[in-house]
């Protein structure tokens, strides 16, 4: 009788244990689901202690920086312009990924991330999947180095590039991953790194357009280089916020030289009335403004040369 009672107690104990294990399993699976949703959503899951947070005085607060202009430099648009002009692809324009392991500081990693991001956009635009793997590997290494590698879906990108299929997805996922990194950095008081990625994308995009313009001059490319006066002034507002950091100071000084050259680029406007029309069922807003960009060939070459020098300095070891 006593043995039977013992056995019942043991069974009860085991049953309770099983329930606890089951509850733990449910909680765990529930949290995993939350985590996956957050990953692409509002980026709240990771709270990594970070030595690279900028702790100097900021002229513009981190919160205000989030309100400042987004999409300052887009690797897609620069590459799309080059491709639309019928300019053939050239691997010579791209930054080498050979020395990525030697990018040791967060500053170098973040700005390098931007440079390789722009190159990846150029490769994707021309469907050069063979070279893409080198660049996504480099990006993954640098992203891990500043604790944002979790947003870069290396496995999927590598599979898409290796199989040479679904190239639209390759572009979509890679651009989106960069946006997720940017959003996470901004939301976690690491906007200094976000601004460096943007700077890297801009410098490399300018370098690509500049090098193409050297070999294949065109009015469109000259205008594109001229209009960067507006983009650079926005980028400088963000970068100058961190000028107390010596690395930032050096970058700002370099870009200041380019900005000084841009003082001689004249941009004028003729305002028109915007209109909304329906074309094939699609609502289209036509701006009807006119913008005139005046830049001499001589000045354009000077800007291209200076940009190339700044870019080569960024990727040098």
């Amino acid at each position: 009788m006593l043995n039977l009672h013992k056995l019942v107690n043991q069974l009860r104990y085991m049953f309770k244990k099983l329930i606890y294990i089951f509850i733990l399993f449910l909680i765990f699976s529930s949290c995993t689901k939350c985590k996956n949703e957050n990953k692409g959503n509002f980026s709240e899951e990771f709270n990594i202690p970070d030595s690279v947070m900028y702790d100097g005085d900021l002229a513009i607060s981190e919160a205000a920086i989030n309100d400042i202009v987004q999409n300052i430099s887009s690797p897609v648009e620069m590459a799309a312009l080059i491709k639309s002009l019928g300019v053939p692809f050239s691997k010579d324009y791209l930054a080498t990924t050979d020395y990525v392991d030697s990018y040791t500081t967060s500053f170098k990693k973040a700005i390098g991330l931007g440079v390789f991001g722009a190159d990846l956009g150029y490769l994707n635009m021309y469907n050069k999947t063979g070279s893409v793997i080198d660049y996504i590997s480099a990006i993954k290494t640098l992203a891990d180095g500043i604790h944002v590698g979790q947003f870069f879906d290396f496995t999927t990108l590598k599979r898409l590039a290796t199989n040479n299929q679904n190239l639209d997805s390759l572009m979509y996922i890679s651009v989106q991953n960069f946006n997720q990194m940017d959003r996470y950095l901004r939301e976690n008081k690491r906007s200094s790194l976000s601004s460096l990625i943007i700077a890297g994308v801009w410098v490399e995009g300018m370098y690509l357009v500049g090098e193409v313009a050297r070999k294949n001059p065109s009015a469109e490319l000259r205008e594109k280089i001229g209009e960067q006066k507006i983009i650079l002034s926005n980028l400088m507002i963000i970068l100058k916020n961190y000028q107390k950091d010596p690395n930032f100071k050096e970058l700002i000084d370099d870009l200041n030289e380019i900005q000084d050259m841009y003082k001689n680029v004249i941009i004028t406007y003729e305002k028109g009335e915007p209109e909304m029309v329906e074309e094939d069922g699609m609502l289209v807003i036509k701006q009807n403004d006119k913008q005139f960009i005046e830049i001499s060939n001589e000045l354009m070459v000077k800007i291209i040369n200076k940009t190339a020098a700044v870019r080569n300095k960024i990727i040098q070891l």
Partner: protein
Amino acid sequence: MRNSYLIVALFAIFILNNNSAKAQSGQELVDLCNIIADDATYLKDFQVKLDAAKPGEEKPNMKFSVVLSKSTQYRFSICNSKDYPGKAIVSLYDNNRLLGTNYLVATGKNYPSFDFKCQSTGVYHIFIDFREGEQGLAVVLLSFVQKL
């Protein structure tokens, strides 16, 4: 008695677990919007979640600023979460003027996307609110259509 507490806890977790699976995430909306954007190339997404307007107060809204380039056609695609009643209204401004919106008050027509033919490089502002000030969750996708 203690076992019955455990069963209730188990049931509650199961219900919570099941509900979270049904909620539409921001990422799902971005993916959905990318399909609506059709053959345009994704550039940026803006995720907005706003509470319902309080009586007597202005509708809450969110503002994003972007740089858009001359001679470029962009597409703005709007996706509303099915978990909230609000339908997003997206208004595009240059420095001081309204250029257009996806909701035409005169006709009451709401467009899921619109194109913008940009003729001047500069900073543009996107304002997003929800019709009638309802609570809502939406994603607005900015994508590149073509050089003009």
